[in-house]
């Protein structure tokens, strides 16, 4: 029992960071699933993180209220940014979002009254693993519901073929706007979660490193289904902890190699609804062969649409 408890304590920090990173990845996933490559999650997280830190540190608000405000402010930031960015062609958007991260860092460093400037901010409140898990569960539930909703159908249509989607009466711009807003709220929550897990945030907390790690986690886990980013975030968070226990010198290299291998051999990520669809189709084929009937037509490749019905 005691050993189990020790194990829990030892890895509770990894678990906590896994939960926080899942929120980051889901925020990335939100825009990615609308066919947009954008790193703005990091900016939303910075807004949410510093807002939460100020709410709790300066105004003494309770944790949950601060987290909610962080989410709202993240959403507000995303509305402004999306209005500006959605005019851009997708490739430029990716670059513009990187530029925005660079600018945010300069802003954070030069507004010490809001962010602590170069000193950063100590956050007086610590979120427990349970609180983080509840937060992620709520966010996951939203993604779960969205996946099955009209919005879920529409966003998959936009990702597959925006032009075709528009002929079906789906406005790509509108869908992408919603995707950005969700990304902003979740990003704001992720920032607040990061602030209350690290208990210290600075300009470096929300910089390129996080942007690259989180996009990698999202794609590694699979960016075609909401559960993928969560898996990716946990894998990417736990990997260094595991390699550190075995071969500390190569923990970073191992991370890079795993990412590379998965991208080459499983380019759609670890969780791929299409692969599930294919397996299901194969099963159905088998079954229909057994039944001596060819009534069930298996359609591999059409899984993204097919998935919405299951």
């Amino acid at each position, binding site marked *: 029992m005691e050993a189990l408890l020790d194990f829990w*304590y030892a890895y509770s920090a990894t678990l906590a960071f896994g939960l926080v990173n899942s929120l980051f990845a889901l925020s990335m996933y939100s825009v990615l699933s609308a066919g947009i490559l954008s790193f703005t999650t990091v900016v939303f997280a910075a807004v949410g993180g510093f807002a939460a830190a100020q709410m709790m540190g300066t105004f003494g608000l309770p944790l949950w209220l601060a987290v909610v405000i962080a989410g709202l402010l993240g959403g507000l930031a995303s509305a402004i940014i999306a209005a500006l960015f959605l005019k851009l062609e997708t490739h430029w958007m990716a670059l513009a979002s990187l530029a925005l991260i660079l600018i945010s860092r300069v802003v954070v460093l030069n507004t010490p009254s809001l962010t602590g400037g170069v000193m950063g901010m*100590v956050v007086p409140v610590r979120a427990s693993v349970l609180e983080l898990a509840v937060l992620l569960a709520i966010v996951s539930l939203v993604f779960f519901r969205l996946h099955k909703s009209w919005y879920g159908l529409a966003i998959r249509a936009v990702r597959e073929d925006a032009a075709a989607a528009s002929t079906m009466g789906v406005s790509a711009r509108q869908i992408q706007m919603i995707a950005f807003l969700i990304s902003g709220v979740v990003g704001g929550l992720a920032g607040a979660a990061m602030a209350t*897990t*690290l208990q*210290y945030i600075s300009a470096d907390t929300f910089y390129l490193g996080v942007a690259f790690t989180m996009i990698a986690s999202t794609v590694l886990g699979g960016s075609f289904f909401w559960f993928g980013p969560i898996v990716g975030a946990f894998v990417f968070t736990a990997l260094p902890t595991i390699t550190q226990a075995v071969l500390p010198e190569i923990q*970073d290299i191992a991370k890079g190699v795993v990412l590379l291998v998965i991208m080459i051999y499983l380019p759609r990520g670890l969780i791929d609804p299409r692969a599930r669809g294919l397996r299901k189709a194969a099963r159905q084929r088998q079954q229909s062969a057994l039944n001596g009937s060819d009534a069930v037509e298996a359609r591999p490749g059409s899984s993204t649409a097919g998935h919405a019905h299951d």
Partner: protein
Amino acid sequence: MNMLETSKRTLLSAVYMAVALGIAAPAHADPDAGEYRIGMISDDSGPIASAGQSYHQGADIAVAEINSKGLAGEGVTLALDIKDSGSDAARAVQAMTQFGSDRGILATTCCILSAIAAAVSPIAMSNEVPLVIYGATRASLPQEPYVTSVVALPGPQEVAMSERLAAELKPQKVAYFLSGDNDIFKARAMAMKEVIEKSGAATVAEISTLSADTDFTGPATQGIATDPDLIVVMTTQQPTVGIITALRQRGYEGTIVTSEVLSPPAIFKKSGETITGIPFALSFQPGVSDSEAAVAFIDAYKAQYNALPDVYAAQGYMAIQFIAQGLKTLSGKPTRQDLAKAMWGTSDIAVNPYGGQPMESGQARTPNTLIVNWTKDGEVKLWEKP
């Protein structure tokens, strides 16, 4: 005067040591024999790894010495459990949480960067595990009783050096290279500026640089254009070396003064020709520090790593010696709480290479000040007016 003060301190510390040992011997039995694990969060990789590796190696030397001489008690040995943070706050927090929850870890030591020290301190407090800060220098990091710091806050040493330079060189026009994104170095530079201005020297330029900068041709040109007879460079290590190199390459021949970031032998290996003769202030430097403890430390370090220790290695060494000293005062099965209390109450670290290291409320006070410079041959000597 400096010499006199040094020897006085050496004497004082010898008395302290005698007192400490004298009291310890009859009042306590040693802690139970056995191996005790110390968790060290290191900076073996990452942007400040050059200093980080020195801290780590210094700590290793301390462990070897403590184990072979029984400094933590009869039959008591220490073992370091290393987790490299790469100067990343998130990794340091994870490591600290793991150490805190691992009941086999008796004490921990961490951190060069103040920001990371501030992030891990609350974890040490809530897990009730002693944390010795070995490198970070922001004020008010120690928290009773678990968080202590063996690094003196910067300031007094630069002030002493500035007073001496102002008196001996009588500079008229002084230019300052500051760190725009490191508050501690900036404050140190401001303290020097105050002293130097008081001596009547005019400030001709204040040039701000950033820690991540690498190209200093612009700032160097700007500084030289004001024709200063003394240039103060108070930035983190990479920019300091870069600025000095740019100044010298552009032909500045006046006096440059800087901080202990020049201390590591690796810096001399990298930029030996350019940093020769530039004064900096610190508390420990091979070739100058000659107390018995310093010599023992230097010899052991040299034997192990085939290189001379720098001031960072000395600080890593001190952190472990401090823990061992606290441990030695306990008897029976030592607990984290008892160890923390013993360490918090310590007023002087007995085994130290500085020739005296007073402690007050868990915070090291400024030990003696050495004003030194590198010579052409790669040695460090006390600085003399050229």
